[in-house]
């Protein structure tokens, strides 16, 4: 007779025995990664050359670095703190000092060092910031309520009072927040760098580092830039003094500027006006200033030839400046009676409205000459082509490289790039101004030399030489 209970017991025991006898699976707790060389040379310091509240931390990389190892940078306000706040965390194969664009005299050794930059205000934002944002949003809402009440002819005195209270609160908060920021930046902060593996097991912990943000007085990355600026200024001043002694410095012919006299003479013969445009930018743009300077020279010739000049403007400040320039030019030419105050007038600030207005004027008046000097955008071709249609002689000068092709195809003469900036010196032939042109040429030579040297040393893999001529702005 078969012993069924015994057989069942045997099967159960077998099922119990088999799992026990299987080889043990891999344990959940991993074996630690072996580090041949631990990270070293930890440093924390105020980030150089910045206007921000940043602190930099750098250290020499460990060996081997691995994607599975992560660095955790913790920050605390006290050296004895728990360092629970994680400022940054990244795999150990990233964030290298060599990625940072610093010249060698600022960064020191870059190869093989990790680098992290922490903004203290982002780590410890002012407590008042959130409140400030909320108040600003509230103020905006109240302002919209007041506008709506005005339209609906409802009483808004309550909303107005609320607005005034909110504005006062905002002023107080803004003062508070700037004081708070200054306090936050003035403190010393403490950092720890920890290396952890993928299971967050700590492999290494750095000693506690400390640093404080500081305001930097000079951007050392721009040292070479600064020296080059001093050198260029000195060159300009030297050539100016040299030009005063030697009044016959050579200038190559610029056809566009030689044609100015011809253009003004043509306008006088035909009895038609001359149009002069100063571009679309305002007096903060050097090209506009240059255009006004050339206007002075041309206005003098216009006054001498007893012709008529019209200068439509897009900017009211430029208009007032040009009015004075034209007046002075007429006085200098001995023709103050011929000056018309409405020769320089405001049209509109809108780009295409200005273009439409000036085109209309050109089509009606059919000027004999048209000068387009300064910076231009899309309206360049519209103005130039319209002028070409009227049969005017056109001379353009612009630093807008995008629009130069249009000027070249539509205008009789075009001053390209630096020819435009050389115009005032060329037309007046004043030794001092010609001297600055010479300085410009010297500057160009200097830059060309830097290009050649840079190319040679770049091919020779000498990065420290490249740092001397590189732009670190």
């Amino acid at each position, binding site marked *: 007779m078969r012993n069924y209970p015994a057989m069942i017991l045997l099967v159960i025991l077998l099922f119990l025995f088999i799992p026990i006898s299987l080889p043990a699976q891999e344990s959940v707790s991993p074996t630690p990664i072996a580090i041949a060389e631990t990270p070293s040379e930890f440093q924390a310091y105020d980030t150089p050359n910045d206007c921000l509240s940043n602190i930099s931390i750098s250290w020499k990389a460990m060996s081997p670095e691995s994607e599975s190892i992560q660095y955790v940078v913790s920050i605390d306000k006290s050296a004895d703190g728990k360092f629970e706040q994680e400022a940054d965390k990244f795999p150990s194969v990233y964030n290298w000092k060599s990625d940072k664009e610093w010249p060698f005299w600022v960064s020191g050794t870059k190869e093989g060092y990790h680098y992290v930059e922490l903004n203290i205000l982002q780590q410890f934002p002012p407590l008042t910031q959130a409140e400030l944002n909320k108040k600003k949003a509230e103020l905006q809402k109240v302002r919209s309520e007041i506008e709506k009440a005005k339209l609906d002819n409802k009483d808004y005195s309550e909303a107005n009072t609320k607005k005034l209270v909110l504005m006062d609160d905002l002023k107080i908060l803004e003062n508070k927040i700037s004081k708070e920021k200054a306090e936050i930046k003035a403190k010393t902060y403490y950092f720890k760098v920890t290396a952890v593996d993928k299971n967050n097991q700590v492999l290494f912990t750095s000693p506690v580092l400390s640093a404080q943000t500081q305001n930097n007085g000079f*951007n050392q990355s721009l040292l070479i830039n600064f020296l080059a600026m001093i050198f260029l200024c000195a060159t300009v001043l030297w050539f100016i003094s040299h030009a005063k002694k030697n009044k016959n410095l050579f200038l190559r012919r610029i056809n566009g500027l030689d044609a100015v006299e011809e253009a003004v003479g043509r306008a006088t013969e035909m009895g038609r006006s001359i149009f002069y445009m100063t571009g679309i930018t305002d007096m903060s743009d050097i090209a506009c200033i240059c255009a006004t300077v050339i206007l002075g020279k041309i206005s003098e010739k216009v006054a001498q030839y007893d012709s008529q000049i019209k200068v439509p403007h897009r900017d009211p400040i430029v208009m007032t400046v040009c009015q004075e320039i034209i007046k002075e030019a007429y006085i200098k030419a001995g023709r103050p009676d011929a000056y018309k105050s*409405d020769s320089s007038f405001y049209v509109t*600030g809108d780009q295409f409205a200005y273009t439409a207005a000036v085109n209309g004027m050109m089509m009606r008046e059919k000027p004999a000459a048209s000068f387009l000097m300064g910076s231009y955008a899309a309206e360049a071709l519209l103005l130039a082509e319209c002028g070409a249609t009227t049969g005017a002689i056109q001379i353009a000068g612009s630093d807008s490289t995008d629009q130069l092709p249009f000027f070249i195809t539509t205008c009789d003469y075009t001053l390209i790039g630096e020819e435009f900036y050389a115009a*005032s010196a060329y037309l007046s032939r004043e030794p001092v101004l010609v001297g600055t042109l010479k300085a410009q040429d010297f500057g160009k030579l200097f830059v060309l030399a830097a290009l050649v040297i840079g190319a040679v040393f770049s091919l020779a893999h000498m990065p420290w030489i490249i740092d001397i001529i590189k732009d670190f702005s």
Partner: protein
Amino acid sequence: MDQFKKLAPLIVAFVMGVFFGLQYYIPHPFTDDLLTGMSKWFIVIGGIAMGLGIVSLFYSHIYKIKRRAPAWGFSFVMFIALFTMLGVGIYCANAEVITETGKQTIYGWLYQSFMVPLQSTMFSILAFYVASAAFRAFRAKTKEATLLLIAAIIVMFARVPMGEAIYAQIPTFQVGGMTIPPTIGNITGWIMKTINMAAQGGISLGICLGVIAMSLKIIFGIEKSYMGSTK
């Protein structure tokens, strides 16, 4: 007094020029705040100067209407547009109207209905002007003009799908890993990235040096014409 009138702007230009030139090298919050403050003052001055511009506009157009100068009717149109937008902006800027696209303020509707189409129309005139300028200017009169003509035709041809489709009909051969003739995209790319960039770089270099020289002339008071004085 005359001397002071001439000297004061030069002193201001010198001090501000040197200070803000150095500001670029000083990463201190004080200098940054000053720069931001200056930008705000510039906006304020621009606003004040706008008043001058409007006065100039008024006088020139009223004078045109009085004298019945050519196209004086447009001066009337200018006044109508000016006072309409001014009136709407002051009295009922936020009043809403319902249009096909939904609710809009009256001011917004006027802008969308008049300014936007007018601006687009002016911009679209460029298409015609480009054609007429190209037809007139691209003549092979000299060697340089011929080079310009060839480069322009290649780039114009390659920048449109029709040109690429036509060029693709030309049979190509592989010679040592190179496609002969090269694709029109490669030719255009070479023109744009090599020749164009080199030319632009050269012109930009000259412009930058010109700007530096001009700025130094203004800062040191060598160039005074922008003040109105040619002495």
